[in-house]
């Protein structure tokens, strides 16, 4: 049953086997698996519960409903925009549905460099098989390839780059292009229509508009979890909910989980809490064409360039790579917000909307950031210098190459200095001139994690290989916060597969 905050009055108390904080890829998958095992599961989600009827494809309305911080949150110095979910189903409700398995080389690195156990290819493969079946992950046929994708594919092939179809979690996609506003057709296989729906059918109790606040401890055991029931309209508290559960799982996402755990005062005992942060900062370039591109329709990324997924080094010297490169898709209002400048020049760009396209890359963070609390407010640090900076610049260079090859007449970097170029030979100098200091560029950060990483003990990590927080009896983490590094591809399938492993550990402990 899915209960909305407005249906709760006063102070409510409930008992269950497992309480899960957060209903995204991590929490929903785990809740479903435990419900399948016949466990009594309660899920707390601070955001609202919306269905396809609420997804009206209007950008401002949907930012307010399903985007964390209403789409306006940033890192502490403004270097990156934080993009995350705040609703039943979490960020999967506004994600693009790219569905990659964790590359074997990354799983091997996690095992060798970080000593990760129980999450190798052999352990995860059966989970990937099932997730792909359940989410109908498949390669889209040519009717789903929009003009921007078609051009990027052609350019990448002309360079001989490794370009592949991006696996898609969809069923009967209508090609509206409104993935980021929530799918009005229930075609995108978000958690809302897959794992949440199944957990619900199996008897899990899912509460929307309920924010987990405080863990009540009895020694090293969490005895209860106290939560606030939030009024969705005013965002003011309207009651409390106390859950007594045998096991407690925090799956509040790469931003939410460390924030919640830091608020419990666990940093002293767990020095790695809030450290090792990654978020895949995303540099983009806008391109002006002589012909219509209509970037806002059809699926966002049917094809992706995998040539540069792993960074290449010559000895210690960085050479290139360390990112995925994709066609971009933005609806007009968000595009207007991130195009540079204002006034007549900006208006002229918008008047040419149909002829605007572009690309985006996600950087496989090489430098770690952090999350901390200051006066109860979350502060996120994302370094854009060092190796991250080199990778960012290389991602811009390669985007210039691919975009000129697609026939673009002008490239717009979207930085504060409004850097634009019209010829390929201008790319090197232009990219070198880009100021990487905070708030000079528009970079989204859609794939957060790492702040409660997995390892042997508290000297190197926050949770063990069974996802249990070190030094506690019954507190677990099930989301990308446990990853030792970013997975080098979009993370949703990795998150879900890890939750299968976490669910087995929680189930065994009951």
């Amino acid at each position, binding site marked *: 049953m899915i209960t909305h905050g407005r249906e709760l009055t006063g102070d409510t108390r409930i008992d269950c086997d497992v309480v899960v904080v957060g209903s995204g890829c991590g929490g929903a998958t785990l809740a479903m698996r435990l419900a399948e095992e016949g466990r009594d599961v309660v899920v707390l989600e601070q955001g609202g519960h919306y269905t396809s009827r609420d997804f009206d494809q209007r950008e401002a*309305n949907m930012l307010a*409903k399903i985007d964390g911080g209403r789409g*306006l949150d940033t890192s502490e110095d403004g270097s990156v925009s934080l993009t995350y979910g705040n609703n039943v189903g979490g960020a999967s409700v506004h994600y693009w549905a790219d569905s990659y398995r964790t590359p074997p080389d990354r799983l091997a690195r996690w095992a060798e460099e970080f000593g990760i156990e129980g999450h190798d290819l052999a352990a995860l493969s059966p989970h990937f098989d099932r997730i792909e079946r359940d989410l109908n992950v498949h390669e889209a046929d040519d009717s789903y390839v929009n003009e921007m994708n078609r051009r990027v594919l052609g350019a990448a092939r002309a360079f001989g780059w490794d370009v592949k179809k991006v696996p898609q979690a969809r069923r009967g996609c209508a090609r*509206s292009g409104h993935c980021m506003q929530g799918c009005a057709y229930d075609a995108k296989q978000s958690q809302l229509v897959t794992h949440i729906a199944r957990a619900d059918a199996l008897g899990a109790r899912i509460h929307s508009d309920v924010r987990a606040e405080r863990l009540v401890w009895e020694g090293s055991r969490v005895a209860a979890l106290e939560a606030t029931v939030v009024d969705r*309209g005013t965002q003011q508290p309207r009651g409390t909910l106390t859950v007594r559960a045998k096991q407690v799982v925090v799956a509040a996402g790469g931003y939410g989980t460390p924030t919640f755990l830091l608020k419990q005062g666990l940093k002293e005992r767990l020095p790695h809490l809030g450290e090792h942060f990654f978020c895949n900062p995303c540099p983009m370039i806008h391109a002006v064409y002589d012909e219509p591109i209509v970037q806002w329709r059809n699926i966002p990324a049917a094809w992706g360039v995998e040539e540069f997924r792993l960074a290449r080094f010559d000895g210690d010297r960085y050479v290139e790579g360390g990112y995925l490169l994709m066609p971009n898709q933005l609806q007009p*209002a968000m595009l*207007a917000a*991130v195009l540079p400048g204002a006034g007549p020049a900006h208006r002229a760009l918008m008047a040419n*909307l149909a002829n605007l396209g572009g690309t985006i890359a996600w950087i496989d963070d090489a430098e770690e950031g952090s999350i901390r609390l200051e006066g109860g407010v979350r502060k996120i640090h994302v370094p854009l210098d060092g190796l991250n900076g080199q990778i960012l610049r290389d991602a811009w260079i390669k985007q210039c190459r691919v975009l000129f090859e697609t026939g673009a007449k002008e490239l717009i970097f979207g930085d504060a200095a409004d850097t634009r170029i019209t010829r390929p030979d201008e790319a090197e100098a232009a990219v070198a001139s880009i100021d990487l200091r905070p708030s*000079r560029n528009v970079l989204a950060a859609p794939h957060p994690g790492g702040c409660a990483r997995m390892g042997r003990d508290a000297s190197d990590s926050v949770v063990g290989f069974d996802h249990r927080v070190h030094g506690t009896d019954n507190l677990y983490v099930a989301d990308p916060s446990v990853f030792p590094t970013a997975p080098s591809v979009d993370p949703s399938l990795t998150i879900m597969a890890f939750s299968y492993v976490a669910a087995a550990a929680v189930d065994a402990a009951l």
Partner: protein
Amino acid sequence: MSVTRRRVLAFGVAGAALLGVGSGLSWIALGYRVGPDDVPVALSAKEMAVVRAIVECLFPAEGAFPSGLDLGVHQRIDEEIWSSPAHVRSDLKAAIQLLEHVPPVYGYFGRLSSLPVEARLACFLDLLEAGLDPVARAAQALKQLSHLFYYAADASWAAIGYDGPWVKTPSPSATSNAYAEAVRTRRQG
């Protein structure tokens, strides 16, 4: 509220605007004028006047492009600030204050909202590219918010050739409905 450097550094790049809680529905405050139909709920009258002035210079009516004031972009920014968490709200207020008072540092004679429309636009563009981080961030925040809400309004779509959502009926958010109620209450009282 003082605009300390720390405070200004704290607001988000996409975040913008103000607060002004308790300022009441006065149309004129300290020489600041809001429009007769404006009902600032999160913003003070002064802050609403500044946002109004920014929207006016960024989005004049021109050809198929409607005026930003006619679309109520300033009122929508008030709604956004009203719906934001308290720390974001106060950071945005700091941003507005900064933008209003910083123009003389950049060679403009007067507060941002008091400049003639053309000079105001030139000034705002200068602030967007300012070398001083907090100023650029404040301008960037207001720029992003105002453009987001201008182009989210269906009346702007014809001018840019956007064929619009396929779902024909808008479904406002719960915060929008609560804000509309707050505006109604202010109007009545």
